[in-house]
């Protein structure tokens, strides 16, 4: 299991810089799909609640759009924290989010190869 220090190291994010203004969550285009919102990721990492985040569906709902990164007044970069947790989650044995068997059902004739490349990068190890 990943610990707090590891998440901080691979994300490069310092959660202590957060002033809990909530702007990241307010600006997140996908916040309504998440149980834990970007500002909660920051807070929960600070408090070492990594396992809860790793087990949550929310970690797969981030679009890596970097709106929260650009708009955080403290330069906290929540998206990098979320991706670090996701990366650790999919690195666990048998925990790829996108299974090879599921792919054919998820693509169609118009879908650009870029979608599969990006999804592979973001949902598998």
């Amino acid at each position, binding site marked *: 299991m990943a610990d707090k220090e590891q998440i901080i*190291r*691979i*994300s*490069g994010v310092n959660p202590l810089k957060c002033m809990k203004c909530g702007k990241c969550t307010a600006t997140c*285009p*996908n916040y309504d*799909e998440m149980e834990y919102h970007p500002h909660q990721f920051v807070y929960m990492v600070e408090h070492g609640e990594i396992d809860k985040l790793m087990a949550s569906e929310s970690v*797969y*709902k981030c*679009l*890596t*759009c*970097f*709106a929260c*990164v*650009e*708009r955080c007044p403290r330069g906290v970069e929540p*998206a*990098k924290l979320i*991706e*670090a947790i996701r*990366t650790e989650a999919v690195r666990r044995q048998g925990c790829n*989010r*996108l299974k090879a068997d599921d792919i054919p059902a*998820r*693509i169609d004739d*118009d*879908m*650009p*190869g*870029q*979608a*599969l*490349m*990006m*999804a*592979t*990068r*973001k*949902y598998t190890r």
Partner: protein
Amino acid sequence: MTYTYFPGCTLRTKAKDLDHYLRISAEKLGMELIEPADWQCCGGAYSNAKDEIANKLSSVRIIMDADKNTGKVLTVCSACHNVLKRVNDDLKNDENFAFKVNNYMKPEVPYSGNVEVIHFLEALRDEVGFDKLASMVVKPFTGKKIAAYYGCLLLRPGKVMAMDDPENPVIMENFIKAIGGTPVIYARRNECCGGYAVMEDPAIAAKRSGAIIENAKDMGADLMVTACPLCMYNLKKTGPDTGIYYFTELLAEALGLKED
């Protein structure tokens, strides 16, 4: 003006128009494109985890290759552009990354740090010049209200992409003016279409993209333009009359190069 042109995988398959119209327009505008013989995929998406090195090496190879010839990597796909610009920035500014890459690749000549990764829009603005472009337009989009859709990958992270003000960009609007159209400003022009999450849950992409199109139409857009094949796919999926085109197609048309 000579460039190492990196089209990327998707421009060989589903986004042939983005590539084709770029090539014919570039020729008309006096830009020489050299396509490396054996390029590989850029990696598709930049991995933000600092301990992910291997999946950035194909981008490193493209950059090192350009270092030996033109010194300029020209891209147009928003995703390739994002990955290549960020990896180039890491090579220049992240010592740990550069050290590991050098250990692994053992290049005969070390990276000079001088390669620039530029987007075709940046080349039009900074090297061709929008004024010169405007003077070459033969079929202007007069009276057409055109909404630029930036999405997320072109502009962010702003410090690294450094293409324009990430919160109040003007580059695509100025391009639209250069081809004779009227730019439409709308709030969601730099919000995400749902991106790769379409593979996780197509409903997410449909909601995010639907909101963008609705916003552009509410503000009076007749057409929309994008530089991203995945934005194009997600936006088109929301319905039949989205009126979204690659900006290169409008460019070629304005220059009188589009075959009817």
